[in-house]
């Protein structure tokens, strides 16, 4: 089956333009005429992931593959890693500082929200090495 592959650099030092990758993917999915429910879920989950790459890691790469019946997203960063994935997945758990809260993030809702919207989610992480979050979406 043919698919469309896209790769985006997520700049860890640029909070201002954070979200441009999710924005571009949303646009592509719209142009391809994918169902609006799928577009919404992909956009929100990927945006949460992109924000995490900037506020918790030092940025990285977002690889996206679009199929006729779904979307696969790999968010890879070389940040500090997640010490306890189970804890990080809990609603309300956040290590965000007040600086980040002043920017409107850091409620500890991102990872649970990504899980809610994606059909598949896997986190691969190593302290001091980085984190890869895989998100899989199927047309429902």
């Amino acid at each position, binding site marked *: 089956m043919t698919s469309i592959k896209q790769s985006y650099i997520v700049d860890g030092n640029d909070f201002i*333009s954070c979200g441009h990758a999710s*924005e571009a993917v*949303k646009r592509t999915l719209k142009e391809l005429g994918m169902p609006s429910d799928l577009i*919404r879920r992909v956009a929100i989950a990927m*945006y*949460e992931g992109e924000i995490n790459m900037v506020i918790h890691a030092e940025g990285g790469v977002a690889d996206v593959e679009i199929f006729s019946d779904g979307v696969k997203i790999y968010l890879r960063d070389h940040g500090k890693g997640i010490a306890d994935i189970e804890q990080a997945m809990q609603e309300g758990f956040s290590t965000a500082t007040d600086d980040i809260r002043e920017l409107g993030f850091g409620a500890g809702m991102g990872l649970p929200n990504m899980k809610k919207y994606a059909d598949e989610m896997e986190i691969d992480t190593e302290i001091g090495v980085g984190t890869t979050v895989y998100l899989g979406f199927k047309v429902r």
Partner: protein
Amino acid sequence: MKLQEIVDLLEAEVVTNKELVPTIEIHSACGSDMMSDVLAYVSDQGLLLTGLCNPQVIRTAEMMDITCVAFVRGKRPDDMVKSLAQSKGIVILETKKQMYQACGILYTHGLDAKQ
């Protein structure tokens, strides 16, 4: 509720995409300074009221298909925020009213907070 009615009730100034105002109908709204909460709890809201003023407010609105962002407490978005909203077709409103007041006015005029 027609967006124009919201503009009037909030005594707001329309900052971007003025020509879209007559075409927009708002069915529900939410008010928050935490984009995390907007992303996590809001569904199908047309209007976001917020006191937070940075580009991620507009990006959050875009991801959530929110068509109008009202900045409360006289917050003035900078050029970066304005041009982002302009290019996305998002209407920005500025109102001097505080968050609680602005939400209360819209709520009592029948604009719901559908979950």
